[in-house]
């Protein structure tokens, strides 16, 4: 079964450093997403991406965050200057169409720890 692949599975970074989280969505999917889950809290929407541009973003997705699809397969989330509160599990997802009845396929996540 097709998978969404995320690397690395765990990233530790110093506060103030830049991090890039990488994702390879399912190849024929058109919509791409990032979500995060802070320990003990809800899964929260960050951003959706379609046709090489952001289609929706949440209040969490401020100027410190950016997304990119640098080639035909990768989808990345960059945090420019990490803060302690950015520590969370970050999930990438993709879908063939807008949500509707199809749901998303999520990756296994990258655990980001900011120290």
């Amino acid at each position, binding site marked *: 079964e097709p998978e969404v692949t995320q690397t690395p599975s765990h990233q530790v970074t110093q506060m103030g450093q830049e991090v890039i989280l990488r994702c390879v969505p399912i190849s024929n999917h058109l919509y791409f997403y990032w979500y995060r889950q802070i320990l003990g*809290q809800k899964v929260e929407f960050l951003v959706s991406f379609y046709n090489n541009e952001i289609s929706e973003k949440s209040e969490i997705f401020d100027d410190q965050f950016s997304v990119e699809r640098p080639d035909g397969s990768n989808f990345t989330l960059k945090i420019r200057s990490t803060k302690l509160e950015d520590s969370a599990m970050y999930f990438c997802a993709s879908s063939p169409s807008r*949500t509707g*009845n199809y749901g998303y396929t999520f990756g296994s996540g990258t655990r980001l720890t900011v120290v």
Partner: protein
Amino acid sequence: DQQVKQNSPSLSVQEGRISILNCDYTNSMFDYFLWYKKYPAEGPTFLISISSIKDKNEDGRFTVFLNKSAKHLSLHIVPSQPGDSAVYFCAASHNAGNMLTFGGGTRLMVKP
């Protein structure tokens, strides 16, 4: 932000019995509702969804019921199996949009 709420943090059920997981929402603009299952160290896995124009959708052992007037949905798993033990999230979107709003999850434990 409590637009989607799962009031039971955990549920324990005997194998073979029915599991009922509940979810309430406040935003009347939501028109698609989805259930995800999550195992530790994995991402959420899509289970089943329902459009707001329906009140029931069934897929094998999983049935989702939607009560729009009460802004309530539930997931029924019959019969429950030990492999169903996981955290279950309900989620909602509006205008079949891209953004999902998740509930806090319910941990289901199915005892053999």
